[in-house]
């Protein structure tokens, strides 16, 4: 599982934007400060992952659940994040559901289309010349 060092860094542009958004207009951020914040963020991911994994393991689970992450934030004294994260999680679940429903709808209408296509092109062998196809009825 070898990652190159760059892969463990978060993109500078996004980090810069996040910093800028959080500070009042006109505040300058030194390059050193920016790098430090980016580094801190990467370490935070590792730290939170480790804490979340501990919660999961304590509950005899191998996969980290969103709830594990929430508990980990409490354990590590970052409770202030929990509330906004609950919102984020709700939004995420909603978006997932919408996507699922949209896909299901797409699949339903597509299979309906396919079915109709199949029926209309189901021309009996002898009649291959006739342009307008007739729906084949099951004559016994």
């Amino acid at each position, binding site marked *: *599982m070898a*990652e190159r060092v760059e*892969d*463990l*860094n*978060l*993109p500078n542009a*996004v980090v810069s*934007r*996040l*910093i800028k*958004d*959080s*500070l009042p207009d*006109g*505040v*300058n*951020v*030194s390059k*050193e*400060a920016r790098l*430090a*914040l980016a*580094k*801190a*963020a*990467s*370490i*935070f*991911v*590792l*730290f*939170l*992952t480790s804490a*979340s*994994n501990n919660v999961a*393991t304590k509950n005899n689970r*191998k*996969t*980290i659940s*969103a709830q*594990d*992450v*929430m508990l980990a*934030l409490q354990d*590590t*004294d*970052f409770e*202030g*994040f929990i509330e*906004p*994260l609950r*919102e*984020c*999680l709700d*939004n*995420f*679940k909603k*978006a*997932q559901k919408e996507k699922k429903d949209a896909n299901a709808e797409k699949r339903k209408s597509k299979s309906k289309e396919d079915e109709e296509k199949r029926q209309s092109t189901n021309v009996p062998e002898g009649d291959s010349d006739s342009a307008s196809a007739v729906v084949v009825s099951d004559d016994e």
Partner: protein
Amino acid sequence: MSSNTKELQLPISRVKTIMKSSPDVDSVPQDSLAVVTRATELFIQNLAKEALKNGDGSKLEYSDVAKVVQAKGNLFFLREIIPRKITVREYKEIMKREGITDIISSSESSEEEDEEGGEEEEEEDEAEEGVEEEEDGGEEEEEDDEDDDEEEEEDAQR
């Protein structure tokens, strides 16, 4: 103030890579991934805001960030990563105060650790780029040493 939009700004794939580099982490479901990503965004913004309070409010410097890290309890995991920096002059003064005067003679003392975990810089007049490169090298060396020490300590405790 950033809005809690549905769209995450940090790339989820990158966050996933970092998470998976942690030992014992198997799979990370999408919703956990989203939560960690958003938590990291909040973390960056929160840390930046806190750091700004340390400065004059118009410019955010490294030292402002380092100050917050050293001061806040829940940022202890960053103490080795974002240490406070001091100049050689300040370092020598501290050493003198502590009565450790014989060790320091030249700036080659950058290998030595000082108690506050501060890093050394060349005299402030020197070009910053050169200084930063040296520091990075120095930092890595020191961190490795410290990690070894920590491991030894842990073993001893066990």
